[in-house]
Every structure is written in C-alpha cells, then in structure tokens.
C-alpha cells in the first residue's frame, strides 16, 4: 500500500533507509521508539493539537483565488494558506511536533539546520516556547542572503552558527549539524527540517505535516463537493509537498504534482532538478535521487530560492515518482519570480520564493484545464524574500509607474 509506507527499516520501495555512521544507529532506534510512543499517546497528541490551533494558527484556510482563476480562464485555483501560520510557513508544524518529542525524551539541547531560515526560525520559536536550548547551523552564503531571518533567530534566543565549509549552503549546514549530533548525541536532539535524512525522519516529518493535506481534503470537499483534479506543491527536500500529497495518495483521480527548482535552466547545470538531472545515491542518511557527478561527488545546486537549493529529494518522493503516482516538473528562477509578481498583483498575496514555484506551475496549467480544480499549497509567505525580490526585480524597485510584466 502506497499510503502505509515506509517499511520497518524506513524504506519507500528501495529508497530511504538508514545510512549513517554507527554512532547514530542506536540513537535513531531510540528516536523511532520514542516517536511511536507519542503517536499513540493521547496527552501528547492533545498538547500538539492545542499548540497547532492556538499558537500556530491551524487549521489554515483554503482560499479560492477567484481573480487569478478568472484571469487565466481555465481551472479553478485554490490555495492552502500555510503562509498564514505563525513564523510564516508550514515549517512550524514539524518544529512544534519534534520539539515536544525532544522535551518528552528529556533532551534539553536542540540543534537544527536551515537554508532560507524558515526552519531555523520555526525551530527557534518552538524552543523559546518550550524553554529548550537551540543552535541553528546555517551556511554563511545563506546567512548573507537571509539576514533578516538570522536576526529573527537571534531575537528568539537561538545561537546561529555560521558554516564555512563547502558551498556554505543548506547541504553544508546539514553536514555540520550531523557532526554536532554525532558528537553530542547523549544530550542533543537533532530537529531535522525536511522529509529527508535517515529513518525515522522522512516518516516523522511527513506525519507532522500531514495536517496540510488532511485539512485541505475536507475543505475542498466542502467547497466543491469533490476532490481536486490536481494537488501541486514545491519540492526541495519535500516536506510541504509530502504533507499535502499524503492525504490524496489513495485517490487515483487526484494528480499529484511536485515542482523542483529549475534554477538558471537545466541546460546550465545550475539547478536543483533531481529527477531530470540526478541519479539514485546516498546523502545525509537516505537513498534517493541525488544530483551528483560521474564519480559520486555531490553536485553543487542553484536556485533563487534557498529552500529548494538542495541536492537530494526526500525518499518518499523518489518512490512516488518511480511508481508513477506523482509527477515531478521543474520551474526556473525567472518563471517563479514572474509568478510571484502575478500573484502579488492579482490576489494581493506575496508568496515565499519556494511557494512561487508551485504557483507558477498552476498558472501554466490552468488555462488548458477548464472545469478542473487545482489545489496549490501556498507553503510560505514572501516577507523573508523581500530583499531577494528587490535584487531580482530592479526595474520594479526603480520605477513604480511602469508595469513589470
């Protein structure tokens, strides 16, 4: 059954698993047992549900984008409004869940990695809320690109630890967080931010985000009296996408579409489109599609969106891809930026750059699909990206009177 994955070893078909140094094997067993215990613990579930509702702002609305849909003249587009959550993106669902789990396990020191800073901010927030110590690893290149989020984390009491190795981006931040965890595994909880890494992380992160799809399924049934024709989400590691997809995996009529970062274009080699440019391999504990060279060295990736800028896709996505259950496409930087401008001007919604990739795919498909219903996960808002939008939309910044597109 596609929806009952993974198997006991954390495999989605051949993908996933547990590829880590021996030091971490017993601690991962311990984590898995603790997670299974809280899954069945009504007190834990009630506490998490309470925080998601009263602190984070769940359930998030499902919004029918009437003006955008009518302008495109085809499908009806609905947005799942994860951008309205506290801290500005879906990441808080998982951060709260894992931080509560860490507290239950008696771990008082939390470490996390972050790319764009959204997971770092969500983790720093959850740690402040629960009184836990927090260190966030972040590549120095990403710290430069996302200065605002660096300060937000510091304001929340977290220590932001700049990573100077390798490409100084998300991949290197994860490596450094894993080195910390290997060293301090006795007292430290590694709060991983995407559906990546060794088992049980891909399963656990998915489960903490499956509220996205579960809510959206009920909401669309209420609004339309039927399921959507397609569910669309951007995919870096793939946490918001798998959180949306999970509720629909058993509905063959719902087309699942993941949008990867096409960066500067696949021909340039500067992208993060794992399915068209990668091959199965192992990075950071999981076996999945990986951008790598012929010698098995991990390739450098590029995306205007730091949250999609990663060489490996979450293992469940690899399996859904191979089974033909989900389709994966990519969207380049320029198209994502144009979609962000369009959504801002037609609906008054400034999306996160990551989410703009999913919006672009919906905009491209909608005109050809009259009578269809498209469900798009608006996984985050664009506040964190204002500097990048300004950098990339210079004409708009310079002259407020001329239309951009």
């Amino acid at each position, binding site marked *: 059954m596609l929806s009952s994955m993974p198997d006991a070893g954390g495999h989605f078909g051949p993908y996933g698993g547990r590829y880590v140094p021996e030091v971490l094997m017993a601690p991962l067993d311990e984590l898995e047992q603790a997670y299974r215990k809280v899954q069945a613990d009504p007190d834990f579930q009630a506490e998490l549900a309470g925080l998601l509702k009263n602190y984070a702002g769940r359930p998030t609305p499902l919004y029918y984008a009437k003006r955008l849909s009518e302008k495109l003249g085809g499908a009806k587009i609905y947005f799942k409004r994860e951008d309205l959550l506290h801290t500005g993106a879906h990441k808080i669902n998982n951060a709260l869940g894992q931080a509560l789990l860490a507290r239950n396990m008696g771990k008082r020191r939390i470490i996390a990695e972050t790319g764009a800073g959204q997971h770092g901010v969500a983790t720093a927030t959850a740690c402040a809320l629960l009184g836990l110590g927090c260190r966030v690893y972040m590549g120095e290149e990403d710290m430069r690109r996302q200065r605002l989020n660096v300060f937000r984390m510091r304001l929340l009491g977290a220590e932001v630890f700049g990573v100077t190795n390798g490409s100084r981006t998300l991949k290197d931040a994860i490596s450094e967080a894993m080195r910390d965890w290997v060293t301090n595994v006795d007292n430290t909880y590694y709060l991983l931010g995407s559906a990546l890494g060794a088992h049980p992380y891909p399963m656990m992160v998915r489960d903490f985000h499956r509220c996205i799809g579960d809510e959206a399924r009920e909401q669309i049934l209420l609004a339309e009296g039927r399921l959507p024709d397609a569910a669309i989400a951007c995919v870096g590691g793939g946490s918001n996408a798998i959180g949306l997809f999970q509720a629909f995996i058993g509905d063959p009529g719902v087309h699942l579409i993941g949008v990867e970062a096409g960066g500067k274009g696949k021909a340039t080699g500067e992208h993060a489109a794992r399915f068209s440019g990668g091959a199965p391999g*192992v990075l950071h504990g999981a076996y999945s599609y990986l951008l790598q060279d012929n010698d*098995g060295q991990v390739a450098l990736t590029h995306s205007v969106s730091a949250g999609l800028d990663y060489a490996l896709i979450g293992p469940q996505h690899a399996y859904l891809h191979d089974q033909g259950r989900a389709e994966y496409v990519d969207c380049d930087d320029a198209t994502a930026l144009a979609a962000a401008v369009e959504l801002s001007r037609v609906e008054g919604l400034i999306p996160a750059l990551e989410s703009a990739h999913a919006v672009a795919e919906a905009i491209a498909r909608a005109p050809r699909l009259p009578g269809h219903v498209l469900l798009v996960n608006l996984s985050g808002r664009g506040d964190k990206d204002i500097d990048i939008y300004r950098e990339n939309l210079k004409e708009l910044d310079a002259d407020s009177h001329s239309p951009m597109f």
Partner: protein
Amino acid sequence: MPTRIAPCFDSLRANNEPALIAYVTAGDPDPETTVEIVAALERGGADLIELGVPFSDPIADGPVIMRASERALAAGTTVEKVLDIAAQIRQRSQIPLVLFTYLNPVMRYGFDRLAARAKQVGIDGFLLTDLSVEEAGSFVDAVKSAGLDTVFLVAPTSTDHRLQLVAKYCSGFVYVVSRTGVTGEQSQVSASVAPLVERLRGFTDLPLGVGFGISTAAQAAQVGAVADGVVVGSSFVRAIESTPPADLFDTIERMARDLKRGAKAGRS
C-alpha cells in the same frame, strides 16, 4: 583465500605486538605524493594502510580530514585514480590496504565492478563509514565474492545486539570508534575504549582496531594495551598539510616510528 589482513594480525599477535594502522587521504596533496607517504609510513613501522577516497560531504570527519578531502578533490582525485595509487603502492609493497570512504562514490562506481577492480590492483578490504550493516547486504555480497574483507565500525553507543550484528558482517578486523564524535585529535583517550573492547570480545574473535582521537605515542600505548590495532589518521593528515615538502617523508616516517614504539610499549 584470506586477504593480507588476517596474516598481518596473526604474525603481530604471535609477537605480542599491536598493529599500527595509518589513515591517509589518497590524492592529498597529489597522487604521486600519496604513494611516497605510504612508503614512509611503512618504513616507520605502519602495519596496515587505510587509503581514504575523498568525498564531497564527509559527515563523519572533523576539520583536518575535511580539508584533506577538499585538497584531494581539487587535485582531481577520483575513485579510478585511487585505484591507480593502490596499484602503484602494491608494485612496491605487500602492506595490507583498506579503502576507507563513504558509500556514494562506491555505489556510483558499482559494487561488483569496484570489488573486482580492487582485487585486481591489490586492495584487501573496504570500510564505508556511512554504510550501516542493515543496508549493507548487496555490498557485502559483492566484496566477499571478490574475496576481499568488509570492515565495519562499532561505537560506544552500539548496544550488545548491534555489536553482535556488526561483528557478523565484519571480516579482517573490526574498527572500534573510541568515542562519539567525528575524526580528529583529542587530548585524552576516551574512557569508553576499554569497556567497549571488552564487550565486543564477547561477540567476536576478529582483531579489534581502535581509532578516532589517537595522536601521541602515550595514547597509542594506552590503546595498544587493550586492542589489537591502533588507528591514527588526523595527525598524519595534519602533518601532510603543514610540513614543507622537503621534510614531509622523514616527518611521516618519524611519526609512525614513535607511534609504533608507543603502541608496543602498551604491551610491556
């Protein structure tokens, strides 16, 4: 037919002598120099060589070996070039050679193809730091069919159940990680070593090599007193990084001699 590893430990055991196992990153600073460094290590008394294949994302390594991996990759070191280095070493020496790396470069090359090539050039075994025994089935099959050894690691966090499982998949020797953490020198040998070695002896008769954080003769003596082999990596790699080329081979030889003397002193 055994590889060169078991006979090496057998003859050392007959002399009541612990092995000095030396790690170097192949291709750091360049392939030709690696061949000469290994010769210097052997002259100094190293008994077994772990030849590191550089990987772009070495999560189990501290800064010293991380930098070595970057230098080796920048110098164009590929799996194929490491095989060439091994072949050149083998032309001059019968010292046991273990390829030490991460899974992805090995997987990309292909398990069967790499095992066959490794056998051909005179490599004796493999150690992949991020390959858990749970995921190792097809790798172990490929390496064993080529007649080579598979070395796995145990750590202070390993439960008895895991020690038993890991020992079952090991051949040649078992690599005992002295402490939780990444590779790199430490001021003291971890207190975890002796109890871990003792626990592991209950599950295997294979030789036990202890590594991570060992850099001085005194530390080698402490480890040599309880284990069959002492692994030293980062301090050799640091010397390769910081020693002027004219002094490099003498320095490496002298370091190996001191460490070997230290390891032996642990038995007297």
